[in-house]
């Protein structure tokens, strides 16, 4: 920086400082915007963390036991005693069992045929029938996996009690980073990033649209603020507030949901900061293109929805068709999710994080440049 520019730079920083202060005050002193900013994200974190879980619990189960033997009762007990199932009905005929599935009263019917104990005692492999409601495919699949493990367990126990030596090989599964496969460990860090994105987009998209509606924007434009100063002054408050929220949600995740924090907090903050740059500049682009708060809000949601769906937050990107996978590379949320989950669950190596950081930074710088260009064009 050469000397004649320094006072100019100082002046610019001072101007931005006043704008930032004004933005914070504007958001903070408005009771409604204050409530809207703080309360919903926290409520949503709690609601969604419990609602959006992949764990399957309390599956309503109907048992149609045609074989009244000790063995069949043992098997049934293995199911009904499990936390996964709730013993809901005991149909006495097959049509009755079918009806229970049809009406959605139960999700699964376990049918033990009459020859179960006979076959078992004679050393054969008896057959049992399990019918699941395929209308809920995801749950059905997970339930079937549970069924398998229960039956495996049943045969192992039985083999032990009979003193059989030749035990079948046992598959030991171990999930790294999340040994109990607790969904919330997976959901909460992702949800934190997603909610942060929603807040940042809304604050930035609404900020200029609101000024246009109130008529304060023109007054702002006649000041010596240059377009880029205006943009920086608008980005900082939105980014800082949203990041603050994001970190608060993180603390809640650790403290309330018991999510481990294994990685470097600095990495988390850096990731969020770069993420904020791209999200808020996109919000400001929306703001520059719209003239009312309503338009800005709708446009904001049109941006947020695809970003969330195409981020890998709930459904893995690897399962998406190739052309959609290509699109996801433009989505900043995609990268920050990896960093967030990595830092929380894994102690992610810096190099891996860096690989996620740079594309996000490129997106951020590009959208910020677009926003400035739009400002100049729309404004002048």
């Amino acid at each position, binding site marked *: 920086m050469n000397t004649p520019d320094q006072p100019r730079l100082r002046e610019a920083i001072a101007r931005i400082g006043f704008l930032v202060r*004004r933005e914070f005050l*504007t958001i903070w*002193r408005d009771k409604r915007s204050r409530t809207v900013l703080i309360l919903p994200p926290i409520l949503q974190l709690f609601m969604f963390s419990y609602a959006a879980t992949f764990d399957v619990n309390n599956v309503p189960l109907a048992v149609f036991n045609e074989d009244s033997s000790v063995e069949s009762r043992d098997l049934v007990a293995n199911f009904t005693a499990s936390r996964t199932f709730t013993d809901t009905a005991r149909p006495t005929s097959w049509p009755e069992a079918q009806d229970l599935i049809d009406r959605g009263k139960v999700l699964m019917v376990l049918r033990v045929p009459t020859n179960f104990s006979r076959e078992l005692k004679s050393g054969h492999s008896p057959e049992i029938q399990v019918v699941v409601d395929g209308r809920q495919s995801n749950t059905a699949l997970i339930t079937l996996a549970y069924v398998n493990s229960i039956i495996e367990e049943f045969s192992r126990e039985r083999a032990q009690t009979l003193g059989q030596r030749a035990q079948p090989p046992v598959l030991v599964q171990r999930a790294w980073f999340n040994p109990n496969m607790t969904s919330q460990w997976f959901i909460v860090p992702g949800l934190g990033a997603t909610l942060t994105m929603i807040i940042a987009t809304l604050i930035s998209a609404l900020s200029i649209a609101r000024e246009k509606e*109130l*008529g304060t924007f023109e*007054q702002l434009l006649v*000041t*010596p603020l240059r377009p880029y100063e205006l943009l920086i002054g608008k980005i900082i408050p939105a980014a800082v507030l949203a990041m603050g929220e994001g970190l608060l949600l993180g603390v809640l995740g650790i403290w309330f949901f018991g999510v481990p924090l294994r990685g470097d907090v600095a990495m988390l903050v850096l990731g969020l900061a770069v993420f904020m740059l791209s999200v808020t500049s996109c919000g400001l682009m929306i703001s520059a293109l719209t003239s009312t708060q309503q338009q800005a809000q709708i446009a904001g949601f049109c941006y947020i929805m695809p970003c969330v769906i195409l981020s890998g937050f709930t459904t893995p990107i690897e399962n998406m068709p190739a052309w959609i996978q290509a699109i996801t590379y433009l989505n900043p949320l995609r990268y920050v999710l990896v960093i967030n989950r990595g830092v929380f669950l894994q102690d992610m190596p810096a190099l891996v994080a860096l690989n996620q950081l740079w594309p996000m930074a490129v997106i951020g710088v590009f959208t910020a440049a677009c926003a400035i260009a739009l400002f100049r064009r729309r404004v002048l």
Partner: protein
Amino acid sequence: MPAGLRFTSITRSFKTEARSVAALAGVSGEIAPGKITGLVGPDGAGKTTLIRVLAGLLDADAGRVQSTGELAHPRMAYMPQKFGLYEDLTVQENMTLYADLHGLDPALRAQRFSELNRFTSLGPFANWLAGNLSGGMKQKLGLACTLIVAPDILLLDEPSVGVDPVSRRELWSMVRALQGSGIAVLWSTAYLDEADGCDHVILLYDGRVIDEGLPSVISGHVARRTWRVVLPTDQRAGRKRDLQRAAATLPNVVDAQIKGRNLRIVTDRDDVPPDVTRASMPGLRALKPEPTPPQFEDAYLAAMRKQDLINESQINRRPGIYSQDPGAITQAVHLALDLGDKPQDDGLSSRAARHTNQTLATPVIETKDLSRRFGNFTAVDRFSFAVSRGEIFGLLGPNGAGKSTTFKMLCGLVVPSSGEALVAGFDLATARADARSRIGYMAQKFAYIGHLTLAQNMEFAGGVYGLARAALTHRIAEVAAEFDLEAYLHQNCGELPLGIKQRMALACAVLHKPAILFLDEPTSGVDPVTRREFWARLNAMADDGTTILVTSHFLDEAEYCDRMAIIYHGRQIAAGSPDEIKSAHADGDNPTLEQAFIRLIDDHDRTNGVRSAA
């Protein structure tokens, strides 16, 4: 069938967070059939509250509204300040919508629409989007929609705010035409020249009726207290204002105002002329006051002042309005602008001195063939003018004439299509931001964040122009004192009355001591007292060398300008001092600017075909 309304002892208060404010404190009166009743009062007097109570939209805390005449339930129509036109629907669609809402029989519609179109002369614009109409045409369409089903009683809430003089004249003749059918009309306004057009006037102030009757009777109350002084014709405008200011500060003078070539003075006692012998200016001492017939405005001011004195003797004094006389304002401005000496008492103001000492050849604002086109539409067409330092220059014209576009080009908000503009020595094509830092800008609409306090808004307004912390704090205190805003510093500015908001907007615009002030319709919708006080401040600033550019379609305001340009359809159709324009474009002994303005526009339309809507 004739019907009217009588209202008795209406009270109504509103609760804000901290306290309860009485908007109406026992208001009684009558709206008679076949007459236009004027509800006249400054902002915040309670006009809108009263109309809403009469329209049945608001319950009064106490009091009664009765219908007079033969109808038990007269049909009432109400046009609010901002009428609910659908801007994305055409003129015809808006009228059809209101016909549907009122359940007008489809068989009767065609006839009613053509009647109303004849009445409003909006027929040719039936397929225009309502949002593309000028302010005056919107009001006419609003009135037509209000009149879809012919009412017995018509309540109009400030119908002429934001309407140019030509449209205003048309609006009045429309309402006059309704009288034949015996409709009772209530017309509320803050503009005093409209009171003379009413058959009966109710003067509302601070929630009370302070006078009522025929306009001529009300004016008669000050019949023997109004005087005029004929000003020497060869005077500069600045000199005229010096005389006016000196006259306003005389001990027995209630009000002094320049009206064309005259200085009108109202004194505080019958038959006692203004005591010019005690004037500080020798120029004023030499002039002879003579009695002149009273005008409505004189009576209004006298009535309001009397009410203030009554209020003052009680406890709840309304702050702000008269807390500073124009002379005091001048002194405060001198101190606050840090320009050294107070106004000199030798009769030659600092401004006059500046005018003689400085070469007027270097203008502060200068445009050459400035043009702006939007697609095929030329908003501003080769406009050239120059304003020198310390001058007050007015850009006048009806709505949509190109005032705002010119203004925005000079502020750097709109890029000119061709031509040049120099502001404070900076070329707007190359040094927009530098030019902007020398400008103070006051938007037409209140442009500060409502839930921030006055102090917080001022901090931003000054800080963003480069005032450092310490200087800023000092400067805010200084300006707040100068503008008498200290009491409001820590209030949310959204809750302040309009007059205070407007004073605050000016205060924010001058925090950084700009060389140039741009004011866009600064006193639109503001009552005459507040307007006068506002202009006293502007005059003092101009005296200290601030160059002021004002847009307005309000011609009373134009009288305060040193020079002005009248623009119409993007072109300058006249330029000069108010006196020059009046004598060139209007007849009569003491012509008004409004006469000149309407004549100019009529002439222009005659030579250029019909008046277009834009």
